[in-house]
Structures are given as C-alpha cells and as structure tokens.
C-alpha cells in the first residue's frame, strides 16, 4: 500500500482521537472508579482497601480518583446518565445532598455479608458507613501545660490570640458551630447561641482557616496552640514529629459517619458492591485501625485496640456513649444561611 500524506494524516488523527476520547475504544468495561478523599484517606485506601478488593473481585481494575465530597457531587451531577465515578465517599452533609439529588443507589442490604454487623449508626440503607471521623480538641503540649478538658477551655484568657478555627465550608467547621450552639442552649435548629459564643471568642482567634487542612500547617508554624481538630489529621502531624495532642472534651467528641455509596447509573454496580463489602469487612477495618492509619472501625466484629483504645474509646459501647452524632438533615436545611452569616460576622 502506498502511504500518501492524506492517509498518514487520517491514521494519525484517528489514533489521536482514540487517545483523547478513550470512550471510543472502551465499548465494554472501564475500571471501577472510586472517589476517595485526598491525603491520608487515599494512602490508607490504596494500601489496604484496594488490595482487599482486588483479591475479592478477581483482580478487577480499580482507579482511585480522590476529591472532596462536594466536588464528587458536582462531577456526578454534570453527567448523571453516564457518571464518571462508580463509588462515592461522603461526609454526612454532602451524603444527604447526594441522596436528595437522586445520585446514589440504595445499598443491596440483603446481599451484604457485613451490613448487619455494623453499629446501628453506621447502618444507612442508602450507603453504609465504613468508618467514623472524630473531632475533639487539638493542642500543642509544649505551650499548653494543662491539657484542655472542655470546649469551653478555648475561651480561657490564656489562649488569647492562640486559638484556631475553620470556616463553615467544611464539615468540621459546621459541626463545631453546632456543638457550640448545643453548649449554650441551642441546637441544630437554633444556631444563634453559637454565633454569640463565636463573637466572644474573637479576641482569642489567631486564625480562621479556609479549610481544615490549613489547621495542620498552622500548628506546624506555631501560629496556633489550640483548635478543634480531626483525630486522623492529628495523627499525621504527630507522626511527622509536630508537638500536637488530641483529647476528647467532656462534652463528647463530635463524630461524623463517612458513608460510601454506589452511584446511580454506574456501569460497574457489581464491582462497586464488592468494593463496599471489602470496606465493611472486619479484616480491612481491623488493618485500617492499626498504625499509621488509626481509622475508627464501624464493624462490631472488630475489637478496638491500640492507640484508638487509649485515646478514643475502649469498645463500641463506649463509642456510642462518647461520640456525639449530629442531625445533618436539620443542619443542611439552614447551612447556606449559616455560611452567609459567618461570612458577614467573621469578616475583618
């Protein structure tokens, strides 16, 4: 065959197009796409969950595409009939949004081997919770000599100009505000007391971080000495040698269940189910509970041990007692208004 310039061009263009739009050549299967969270979650899932899934699913292909909950929702929303993600991971607020926007499948509970072993709070029919996130008080033990015992300690005069918080864009920031409201006689439906308490906290604030990840940087830089903080985020800092400690205040730790969902219209529902099963299994949860991950398990078959038993709770009964779960259905109703108000009142 004679290779004309035109011929060559056509071949090149076709190959290029196939490369640019891989969907053309993938008439059949694409790998399972799991949108996990960024940072330590991705590391943990890559190291423990993915191998367990591949073993259970006959070496099926899987891709981790880490991003924030809200970005997962935006991505799936933009292509509902052919979603680019098969399995989503959500904080409680976004989870309810995803369910309300009809983006997720109910979890096939009857087929699940592990669902019934989860603690009651983790049994969510629209997507069970494979782990919890726990928020307590984080402090620098080199500058804070007496460990704090209550959220109220943040208002102590000795912490003037040393306190860090985050804004309400994050689950952590919003959860903290709800806790403040509850301490001062409010609730998920009545946030007013929290804003009053925040006003009183203003002279103490060294920083209002734009996201929880920044709090870690601020501890590292000595910019703040005390703040509400996520247990798992603190472990990473500690492992890097930053002087930080985590305590559960006497009011209880703010706990978020992180739920995992099969995306509606996913072409990989079978595999998605297998991945979630792996995430709920006692083997995976027990491994994730160990150093360096220290992720709080939800499967009651996993006995709590090690660092978790020391700092958080010794068994599932104590978890139920010490962890405060908030009503995110109520929170979501007014969250936009709160963020608006926070924008206005906290702005310098």
């Amino acid at each position, binding site marked *: 065959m004679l290779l004309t310039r035109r011929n060559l061009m056509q071949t090149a263009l076709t190959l290029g197009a196939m490369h640019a739009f891989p969907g053309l050549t993938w008439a059949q299967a694409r790998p399972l796409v799991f949108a996990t969270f960024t940072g330590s979650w991705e590391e943990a899932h890559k190291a423990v969950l993915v191998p367990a899934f591949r073993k259970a699913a006959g070496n099926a292909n899987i891709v981790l595409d880490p991003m924030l909950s809200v970005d997962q929702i935006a991505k799936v929303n933009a292509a509902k009939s052919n979603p680019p993600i098969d399995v989503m991971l959500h904080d409680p607020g976004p989870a309810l949004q995803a369910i309300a926007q009809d983006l997720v499948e109910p979890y096939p509970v009857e087929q699940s081997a592990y669902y019934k072993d989860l603690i009651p709070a983790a049994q969510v029919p629209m997507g069970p919770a494979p782990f919890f996130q726990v928020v307590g008080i984080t402090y620098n033990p080199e500058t804070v000599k007496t460990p704090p015992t209550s959220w109220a300690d943040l208002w102590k005069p000795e912490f003037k100009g040393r306190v860090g918080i985050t804004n309400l864009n994050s689950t952590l920031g919003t959860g903290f505000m709800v806790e403040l409201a509850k301490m001062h006689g409010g609730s998920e439906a009545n946030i007013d007391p929290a804003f009053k308490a925040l006003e009183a906290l203003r002279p103490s604030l060294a920083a209002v971080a*734009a996201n929880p990840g920044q709090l870690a940087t601020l501890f590292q830089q000595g910019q703040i000495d005390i703040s509400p903080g996520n247990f798992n985020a603190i472990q990473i800092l500690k492992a890097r040698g930053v002087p930080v400690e985590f305590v559960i205040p006497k009011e209880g730790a703010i706990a978020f269940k992180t739920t995992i969902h099969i995306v509606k219209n996913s072409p990989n529902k079978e595999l998605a189910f297998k991945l979630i099963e792996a995430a709920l299994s006692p083997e995976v949860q027990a491994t994730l509970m160990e150093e360096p991950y220290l992720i709080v398990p939800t499967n009651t078959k996993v006995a709590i041990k090690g660092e978790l038993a020391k700092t958080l709770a010794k068994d599932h009964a104590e978890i139920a007692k010490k962890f405060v779960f908030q009503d995110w259905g109520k929170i979501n109703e007014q969250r936009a208004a709160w963020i608006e108000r926070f924008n206005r009142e906290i702005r310098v």
Partner: protein
Amino acid sequence: MAATLRDVTTYDLKLAAPLAAGFVLFFVTPLVILLALSFQTDPQGGHYGLTQYVNFLGDSFSLGVLGSTLWLGVKVTVLTLLLGYPVAWLHQRSPGWARGLIMLLVLLPLLTSVVVRTFAWVVILGRQGIVNATLSWIGLIDTPLKLLYTEGGVVVALAQVQMPLMVLPIITALSRIDPNFADASSVLGAGHWRTFRKVILPLSLPGIVAGCLLTYAAAITAFITQSLIGGGQMLFMPMYIYQQASTLQNWPFAAAISIVFLVSVLVVVSIFNALGRLSRGYANA
C-alpha cells in the same frame, strides 16, 4: 502575463480555524451555559429571571466582597510595578552575563508551582517565621507580629508570586528603546532623573500597561494564594464563587457572581487598554 500575484500581506484565515473551533467549543459554549445558568431563579431550575443578580447587586456585603477584590488587585499591581520596574531597568543596564542571571531569577518562580510558592510565604509570614524571628532577634519586637492572615500579607505574597508577569513585558519594552535617546537627552542637558522621567518612562509605558494588565488579572483571580495567606476571615470573589458553587451547590447564584465578576474585570481591563492606547500615542509622538 496577467498572472495574479499572491498577496503576501494577507493570510488565509483558515489557518486559524482549529484554534477558533477549540475556542468556541471549550470557551464560548461553557460561557453561554454559565450565562443561561445565572438567570435561573433557584438551584432546582425551571424559572428564569434576574433574581440572582438582584440578590447580588442589592446586597452591600456582596458588593463589598467585589469591591475589596478589585481593590486588592490595584494594591498588588502598584506594589508589583514599584518592585518590578527597577528589576527590569537593572536587567537592561547590566552586562551580558548579569542579564542572563537576572532573567533566570525572574523566571525561576514560574518553574515552581503557585502552591509551593504560597506555602513558602506561609513559612515566611508565620509567628515563628523568618520575618518575626529576625525582628525579635534584632530586638525590635517582643511579641510576634500578626502577618499571616492579614491583607498586607496577601498583597506582598501576591506581588511576589505574580512578579514575572510584570517584569517580562517591561524588559521587552525597555529593550526596544534606542539607547541613543538617553544619550541625546543628557547631551541636551537633562540629568539622570529628568531623562528617566521624560524619555525612558514614557517610552516604556506600553510595557508597563501590559504588565499591569497581566498582574491585575492574575492577582484578583488567585484563589490559592488568597485563601492560603488570607485565611477564612477574608473573603474575595474566587472563594465566594467556590463557596456558593461547591459547598452550597447553589449554581445559579455562583454563575451570577461569576458573570458580575467577569464584567467588572472587563471594565477594568478596558480602562487599562484605553490607557495603553493613550500611552502608545504618547510614545510615538
């Protein structure tokens, strides 16, 4: 022979077709969708109207955010110009080897990511950062100054991060100026300062305008630097848009803010452009 000669001064527009097609597909279309979205009255869709615009333009807080963002851009641009012009000038006046070095130093920041450069500023401005450590070592301060999470910090960090955008156009403009002009000016009795003010500065105006335009546009849209150095207590337009679109999933309002922001920036840009045209006339006069 009546063969028509090909006109070499005009080009076939077809050559620009791929770029134009890409532009329409990936820029104009999303922009039209954005515009349509901004007229939805609620996130669920259905009704169309001006509600979102009324909400934004009738709200002093939102207008304040817009105003402070545009004003931030002005401050950053002025500071970048004051710091960048001498660098460009030095580059022009240096021997060959030093020019290469200065150019490398100017370009170096562009070779690292904005995130890295911004984190460096977190370290510099922090309580135990370089600035505070030096000041307390000299004995000028007892307690560390608050530099991070202040507007001053944002302006300084942005000025450094965007510096190449200012310096490069000015270097180009300065290198086009015939060195004989400066010599002629001094022969005619003008001192260094007068020569600079009356000859060099006007001739380099096109470069200044181009540099200001680039710096301004980059500074007001710098989401990463604004949020990392500014923190959660300072709200600028990019963060406001992100908050509405992502956290609150209120796409119509986010779209409306984006359009308002786009239009305001276009207004500022056209002012710069008008200045640019004036300056060209000035330079050629």
